[in-house]
């Protein structure tokens, strides 16, 4: 199971940039189709909000690849370890 957790990490690392590419591509095409303030604001908000989430997905994948999820902390002593 731990091996699967690690290998899937690659998938999560790739998923972040792929999602952002698809989002920006769709945003650009929708704004070009209907260049109104509503459309720009709407897609602008989508991109701004999802960008940090995609970065979070990459970090999640990186942690998974490094085996950080092989063992989950069970008390605050473990959580406080740096």
């Amino acid at each position, binding site marked *: 199971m731990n091996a699967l957790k690690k290998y899937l990490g690659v998938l999560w690392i790739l998923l972040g940039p792929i999602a952002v590419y698809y989002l920006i591509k769709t945003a650009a095409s929708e704004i070009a189709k209907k260049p109104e303030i509503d459309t720009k604001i709407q897609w602008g908000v989508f991109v701004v909000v999802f960008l940090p989430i995609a970065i979070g997905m990459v970090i999640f994948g990186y942690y998974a690849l490094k085996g950080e999820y092989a063992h989950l902390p069970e008390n605050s002593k473990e959580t406080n370890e*740096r």
Partner: protein
Amino acid sequence: MNQSTASKGIWKVIAASSVGTLIEWYDFYIFGSLATIIAQQFFPSGNPTAALLSTLATFAAGFIVRPFGALVFGRLGDLIGRKYTFLLTLVIMGGSTFAIGLVPGYASIGFAAPLIVLVLRLLQGLALGGEYGGAATYVAEHSPPDKRGYYTSWIQTTATLGLFLSLGVILIVRHSLHSDLNESIRRFDDWGWRIPFWLSIVLVGVSIYIRLKMKESPLFSKIKAEGKISVNPLKESFGHKMNLKMVLLALFGATMGQGVVWYTGQFYAQSFVETVCRISFDQSRTILIWAILFATPFFVVFGSWSDKVGRKWIMIIGMLLAISTYHIIFDQFLKLSEPPGQVTRVVEPEVPEITTIARAKSSDSIRTTTKAFHHFENGSVYKQVAIDTVKADGTIKAGPLLYRDKVVDTGTYWKFVALVFVLVLYVTMVYGPIAAFLVELFPTRIRYTSMSLPYHIGNGVFGGLTPFIATLMTTIYVNDKLSGLWYPIVVAAVCMIIGAVYISNRIDPDVND
């Protein structure tokens, strides 16, 4: 303290937390439910600045400000305590809701009106971001380990009951302003929409009174007395790898999928039934009201069950059921709203009702004319309208004849209720155990901050965007009315895989750390 005193105490804690959270959800939802009327009052169509403010009010409050509120109030909750923080969120929410009901319309004070409404809406989003984490943490920190899922599930019912309350109040007020229904609706659209906002101040007042009598969470009091409270909860929550990895796991393995299942079941379903199936305003809302009423007890059932079998698999199975049946259920909605057999009677209106909507940045207009009411053999009545385009030069391009405001027969109506009930049942599976799951993931000193952010990104961003993205997809892929479902299906599927592979099913026996 004997067991019955302790038991009485926990129910006071649950009641105080739940009532306040329910009211906050009510406040948040009435704005959304009355969005069309609010837009008419404050955001005049055709004006680009007003359109900008309107879009910001709709998007910013739900998607940007809620996670920001989670950070602001989560940090406060971990520094000064749970009780005073969620009292503050309640005051902000109640005050802004009441104030929205007082703001004069655009016609009276011009651009100050939409600007004030935008600020108040942002305050609502901020308060909501801080409320839930506090209430869930407060109840969980009072609960015994073997009943944490059961007790916190009462908090989980509040979001759905808040929606129920907002829909109920709006329908009652809309029907009560005059004995003639059409006049009552006209009055509601004119000024009566303010009443649900004003009502909030009474509800919030009662809730503040109850919450003021409550004591601080025992776990927070303990770590405070021992001098162990966090100095910088934000840094500890997101700056340290050991905790950040749990925040990311909570988001991508639980709350992201839970958010889309929730918003698909309760919001997109209602929107789909009303705007795609064209079921009438009242029926589309009462269908949801009945479904919520029947399904709400299951939040407690699944929360309680999670104390016995663990939180993880109940949530994962809820997501699995949702992604594998969404297409079937929404396809049934379409089939149920098709014309049911032969038209037995056609009633033409004495004076045709004509509505004209100007298109933005165009001199063409869309004109909707009521042609007839078609009565079917099973008792359903569909309104037939002509959708024509009035060109700038005055010529009219005749459009198609379509059915609108469908009032379905009793049997079909209850089939709709049953299908929406199934969707809300999925919501109860993914949402019932999640408060206990999140609380157990983080230590007391940074619990409020750490659990609030993934919850509000999962629900505010992934969930809150569901109706918009789903509707948007139907405008891109116009030939497939079910194309909007791909967004919740893909998000829930990714979340389900992450949750199944990475999350532990272990119930934390001790959250006193």
